[in-house]
């Protein structure tokens, strides 16, 4: 294809922070768009203050949490509470194809940077606002972050064991749902504008996007009145199905057998144990009915195995299986290595640090982690001169007045 990146030439004024917004614009940045992130020392992105840090030492430019979500972007500092900064922001909006922001709804309005005002500056503008619960409604202004949203939107309730309190997913789970929807719809809006010349405003509530990952349970409630709960590792369709203890400290193997062919493969991989012939395990529905008897028999085999070797043995026999991998395991997984899942990028303050690669690969315009996340204000010089056309003297004044700050 006669272009290197999918979105080369596309320009984004990125006012987002924390998780959902920056992850959304990262897709565009890694695929060639010019994404300028507007930050300020007066209100640093909270992820810059969050671990893990290079060498465990905190610092605004040392957080991998921030770095992972902000590859391939330009970083500038601008104190948007100052009117001069708001005017400069509008110049950037006039330059941009897309504006993205992820504040609680009143913030951009307060700065005079809401869609109604920005489309006066740039009538073809596409603007994405993403916040927890949407731009309208009685809870619109309620602040929050991903852990709370994961709880509010039902994911905590379905995590863990039925006889215990929830065992929540690690971290801000919905922050890894909403961006998939936000990036998709932004890209579609770009194409719509290419076709028609019409830009538009997108209000993406993280709550609403996330509920699409619960849709069958929501229908089940509306239709049957059933409330989905926690089910541990039980499956309605597979047995054995679960995490089984292996040799070593806290090592586990996940195994899932969902049909007769896989069951036969499983028994063959275990060298045909006698219990494999018991009538109570003869069919999939019998195995489901007797899974509590089956699980200890499976585990009696796995506890004697080294997890990686057993996973390989089962996979080779045609049984879905895999090690319950911790993060160190992930960095040593040959499948992830072959895919390019972890990449070391050099960073001005952090040196080489591990970044995540992409979840999809494009065969002709592959995209890449073009460069490490910016340190605070790293691209002030470039953006204020090359994009906004300011003189060195003007820039010096703006720095002195803490507009560029």
């Amino acid at each position, binding site marked *: 294809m006669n272009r290197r990146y999918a*979105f080369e030439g596309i320009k984004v004024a990125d006012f987002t922070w924390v998780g959902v917004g920056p992850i959304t614009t990262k897709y565009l940045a890694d695929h060639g768009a010019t994404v300028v992130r507007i930050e300020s020392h007066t209100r640093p992105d909270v992820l810059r203050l969050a671990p893990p840090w290079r060498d465990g030492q905190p610092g605004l430019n040392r957080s991998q949490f921030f770095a992972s979500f902000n590859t391939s972007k330009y970083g500038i500092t601008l104190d948007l509470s100052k009117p001069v900064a708001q005017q400069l922001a509008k110049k950037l909006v006039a330059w941009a194809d897309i504006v993205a922001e992820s504040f609680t709804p009143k913030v951009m309005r307060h700065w005079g940077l809401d869609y109604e005002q920005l489309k006066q500056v740039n009538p073809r503008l596409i603007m994405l606002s993403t916040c927890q619960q949407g731009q309208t409604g009685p809870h619109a202004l309620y602040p929050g972050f991903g852990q709370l949203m994961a709880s509010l939107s039902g994911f905590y309730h379905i995590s863990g064991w039925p006889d215990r309190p929830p065992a929540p997913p690690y971290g801000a789970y919905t922050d890894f749902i909403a961006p998939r929807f936000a990036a998709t719809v932004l890209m579609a809006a770009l194409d719509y504008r290419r076709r*028609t010349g019409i830009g538009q405003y997108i209000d993406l509530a993280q709550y609403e996007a996330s509920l699409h990952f619960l849709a069958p349970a929501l229908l089940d409630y509306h239709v049957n009145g059933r409330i989905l709960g926690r089910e541990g590792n039980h499956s309605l369709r597979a047995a054995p199905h679960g*995490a089984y203890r292996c040799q070593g400290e806290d090592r586990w193997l996940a195994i899932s057998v969902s049909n007769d062919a896989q069951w036969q493969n499983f028994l063959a991989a275990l060298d045909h144990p006698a219990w494999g012939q018991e009538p109570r395990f003869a069919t999939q529905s019998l195995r489901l009915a007797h899974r509590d008897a089956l699980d200890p028999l499976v585990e009696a085999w796995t506890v004697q195995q080294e997890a990686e070797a057993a996973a390989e043995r089962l996979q080779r026999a045609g049984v879905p299986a895999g090690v319950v991998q911790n993060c160190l395991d992930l960095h040593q997984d040959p499948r992830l290595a072959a895919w390019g899942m972890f990449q070391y990028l050099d960073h001005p303050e952090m040196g080489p640090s591990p970044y995540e690669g992409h*979840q999809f690969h494009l065969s002709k315009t592959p995209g890449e982690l073009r460069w490490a996340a910016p340190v605070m204000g790293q691209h002030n010089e470039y953006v204020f001169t090359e994009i906004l056309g300011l003189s060195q003297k003007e820039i010096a004044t703006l720095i002195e007045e803490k507009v560029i700050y």
Partner: protein
Amino acid sequence: MTTPSALMAGYRMLDLCDERGMLCGKIFADMGAEVIKIEPPGGDPARLLPPFYHDEADLEKSLFWFAYQAGKKSITLNLDTADGRAIFQDLVKVADFVVESFPVGYLDSLGLGYEALSRLNPRIIVTSLTPFGDTEPGRSHQADDLILWATGGMMAIMGEQDRPPVRMNLLQSYFHAGAEAAVGTMAAHYPRECTGEGQHVVVNMQACIVWTLMNEQAYPILHGNSVQRNGVFVGSAGMRQRTVFPCKDGYITLLLAGGPLAFSLRAFIQWMDEKGMAPKWMVEKDWSMWGPATFMNAKGEEVQKEIDAIEAAVTAFLMTMTKAEIYAEALKRRILLAPVSTVADIAASEQLAARDFFVPITHEDLGETILYPGPFAKLSATPLRVAGRAPHLGEHNQEVYGKLLGYDKERLIQLRAVGAI
């Protein structure tokens, strides 16, 4: 040109996905693309995924199927026959997207892989969902949701120390992969519309789970440690802090911390105090710096004792109220907490109601209207919409084979006879 009636109006997707990728086509259907689900003549196996309408296991009553096929069309087509493959090629010539989740290399083995399809239609974009990518050694590995949750790293940090690692209910990894496939497909779509050239998109489902680990992957490299699964507790600087508290009718998620969250903690303690349930020392304490940073420099035992005392007081307070009462008051006082919602709580949300999130979809065959989750975003120029109920098996054979491909009646009868459709 006439203005397209919807965001993706005028584009056509052939959807070959099983449950692993169904959400991708659903997202495209919501955006106004024409999405044609291609099923084997006996019906897609995902039609038998629970739960079911009135618990009646039936090819036309899976609520899982309803949820992720809404707004699509259905045709039957047997790719195992030469006629079936020829028809598929005809379809590819008039399509913009193909999305599939077959075992890696299966379409290639039928002569229907990306290279072959791009010769028929250079514009075509083929998106393949794969468990571990298209390269060895993962290429030939099999996985379902459990295995992806395990190998992707999320399972190891979910659960409790005295039990095995645990997954989340409801096949979450398939939804991550399906939604990510939508991103990848759109990322190929934009340059295609600029250059006329399509490409192959490969989604790695394991990688989709790794991405959900947030900041965790780098810990072993940068800090030399990793978190361990610890139920409702999180650890920081050697301390153990509860994140989920019991209340009268369920659970509440509440992160007690100072620093940037001190405003919330102070508001919470003031609320406790107004109800006469805040210990005096909690009211008097300076919370502005209380958190992991100060824990690091403090005596571990004393800090843990303090954390435990705070949590005991908070639990006693929350136990006097229901989830709904607590959340309503938290909204007023700007306290950062959330109920551990069930689907019933979500269905009753006044915020979702105010935004008309749930939309009624008519199932005239069942004589019923069912509430569905509505558009995932609100767009000013081209609103998204759930276009209608899921299709019956082969409901659109006539429309697609007759009108779109222009096959005559005789041809259709013959194709049916040889089992191609």
